């Protein structure tokens, strides 16, 4: 049921009158896409023609403010398809509700029509409805309540963010690598890849089996680059196109040559060779010493046995002589 245009002013004349009118007009509410909308005193819904004709889904969002809210309250909303949007701000204050000035702005320009204001008790409600068809309608929508201070609530509409890799992708000359871009729960119309040549973005064309673009699911895209050269390194951009905007992500590719890890490898191999040589030489050295001392011990032992056999007094003389002969 369509509300009478005469009743729909940009600003309600008096909150109480509007409330009375809304109580008289009972209209069925279409289902809201966002189920978090609280129970609002608006029972009549100003439906514009476009909103009636299209079959876009509804997005409803709500912000609550009080006179004591110190920080600006923001709500980030991710949107990828054209939608009908229903934004509500509620403001609770102990002062006079009539003295509050309510405005809506998109980015920084004031919106003239299409919003409703009503009040219950000590809370002021304002509602703004519009349709997002393309990127022009995306942005920041703010509701302002001005008493002495201005309280502000902002709804930020953004396209879904893309996730690439935070760290650079490292690969080697002659290898092939795959750059992936994906976004959660989103279905872009189109994916494109760009490579940067200095500061110029050049779209990546599918040339000669070097570049292959495909993706297993709608929410991801993969760029496969084969036969890498050192020049292929650099910044790559993946670009997702939605009906309501574009989103892009940056991926860094580094192409190394084999010499880069080879140098530390050779250094470590040299170190191991030295270590093994040191251990084996050390052992040979201690063994030689052991053998010398062993030989000396053996001679002493044989001398001991011989001296035990022979008589006591004559021991010294033969022993010395024998030692000398052996020593030579």
């Amino acid at each position, binding site marked *: 049921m369509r509300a009478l245009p005469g009743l729909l002013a940009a600003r309600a004349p008096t909150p109480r009158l509007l409330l009375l009118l809304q109580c008289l007009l009972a209209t069925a509410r279409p289902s809201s896409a966002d189920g978090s909308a609280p129970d609002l005193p608006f029972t009549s819904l100003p439906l514009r023609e476009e909103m009636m004709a299209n079959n876009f889904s509804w997005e409803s969002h709500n912000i609550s403010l009080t006179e004591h809210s110190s920080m600006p309250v923001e709500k980030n909303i991710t949107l990828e398809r054209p939608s009908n949007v229903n934004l509500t701000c509620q403001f609770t204050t102990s002062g006079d509700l009539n003295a509050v000035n309510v405005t809506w702005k998109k980015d920084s320009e004031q919106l003239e029509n299409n919003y409703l204001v009503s009040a219950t008790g000590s809370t002021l409600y304002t509602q703004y409805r519009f349709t997002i068809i393309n990127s022009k309608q995306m942005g920041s929508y703010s509701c302002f309540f001005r008493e002495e201070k201005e309280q502000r609530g902002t709804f930020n509409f953004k396209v879904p963010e893309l996730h690439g890799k935070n*760290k650079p992708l*490292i*690969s*080697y000359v002659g*290898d092939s*690598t*795959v750059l992936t871009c994906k976004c959660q729960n989103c279905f872009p119309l189109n994916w494109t890849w760009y490579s940067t040549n200095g500061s110029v973005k050049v779209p990546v064309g599918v040339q000669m089996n070097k570049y292959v673009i495909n993706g297993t699911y709608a929410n991801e895209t993969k760029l496969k680059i084969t036969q890498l050269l050192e020049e292929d390194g650099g910044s790559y951009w993946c670009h997702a196109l939605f009906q309501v905007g574009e989103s892009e992500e940056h991926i860094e590719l580094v192409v*190394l040559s*084999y010499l*880069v*890890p*080879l140098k*530390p*490898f050779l250094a*470590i*191999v040299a170190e*191991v060779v030295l*270590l*093994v040589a040191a*251990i*084996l030489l050390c*052992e040979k050295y201690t*063994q030689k010493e052991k053998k010398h001392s*062993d030989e000396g*011990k*053996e001679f002493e032992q044989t001398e001991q046995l011989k001296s035990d056999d022979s008589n006591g007094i004559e021991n010294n003389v033969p022993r010395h002589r024998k030692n000398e002969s052996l020593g030579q």
Partner: protein
Amino acid sequence: MARRTEPPDGGWGWVVVLSAFFQSALVFGVLRSFGVFFVEFVAAFGEQAARVSWIASIGIAVQQFGSPVGSALSTKFGPRPVVMTGGILAALGMLLASFATSLTHLYLSIGLLSGSGWALTFAPTLACLSCYFSRRRSLATGLALTGVGLSSFAFAPFFQWLLSHYAWRGSLLLVSALSLHLVACGALLRPPSLAEDPAVGGPRAQLTSLLHHGPFLRYTVALTLINTGYFIPYLHLVAHLQDLDWDPLPAAFLLSVAAISDLVGRVVSGWLGDAVPGPVTRLLMLWTTLTGVSLALFPVARAPTALVALAVAYGFTSGALAPLAFSVLPELVGTKRIYCGLGLLQMIESIGGLLGPPLSGYLRDVTGNYTASFVVAGAFLLSGSGILLTLPDFFSCFSTTTSRPQDLVTEAPDIKVSLPKEGLEED
């Protein structure tokens, strides 16, 4: 020259402990941290994770199945040349893997080549360690095996750092250089001058004598059952935690906690095994039973504190049983058959290690959660510990020494004959 009839229990033995420490770090630490490479391999080759996991599975399988070969060779040539060759093979495998263009290439280079390299290093080293220690054998083994725990700690972030700077090819190249240190560790393995040392009969004779040795066979069965349940938490704990809605970071932290208590368990158990009189088998049974119980309790625990406590308990008890499992062997078969015995043991118990995780995974697929897997793992451990009861001297009050008096008497004529050979062998 005085020949020792008892193992020295010190001296150069501690250097062997150090060598074994680094070797277990370089073999098992690398294997356990290989998970870091998996993500890269999956991305680089576009293959499923299951097919990529075969790389490590083949490596572990070859390492364990090839242990008898390593043992047999070290009985013949001594541990040093065998371990050094193993180190070269392991490093070569990694080096070739860095040039891989397909997954099969990796199966062959890391799985087969590095795996056989690892097979030639681990069993001979532990056997050599047992030759150097008798009274403090458990402590020495425990200290040596702490290398596994510490390296799992250090290597995982280190490999991650390598990957972020050199990608997988460069990282494999550098891990190959790291594995080359196995050669240096092998160089440290001086064969001890033990009277019992000369191999009585060739490897084949030892093998047949072992296969007829009742207690040894029972011990092998017990360890195989233990092995079946042992590895399951390492593989499936994180997945189980994620089933309970844990975040990846706290889950990894829980694994680290288990790893630390594993480390402590190894050292404490090693010390305890030597300090407590009586056969080591009793302690082994105690730790195995406790591990089985803690495993079976895992599905019951829901609260984070209970899970942390169980993780600590599991880590401690499973770490505790590791060094004892190796110390019991010389008591059973004697130091002269230690090389062969260890190799054979590793080969047979690897069957358990290979079958356990897939069985656990299969139970998970069939029942939908890990309750059955953990309970079955606990059951395997408990049955293994039950078989330990049947080992000889379990109920005796005295511990068996490695050299029984009757062995020495029969050996006496052999000693004189083999002395000149020993002198030549030492070079």
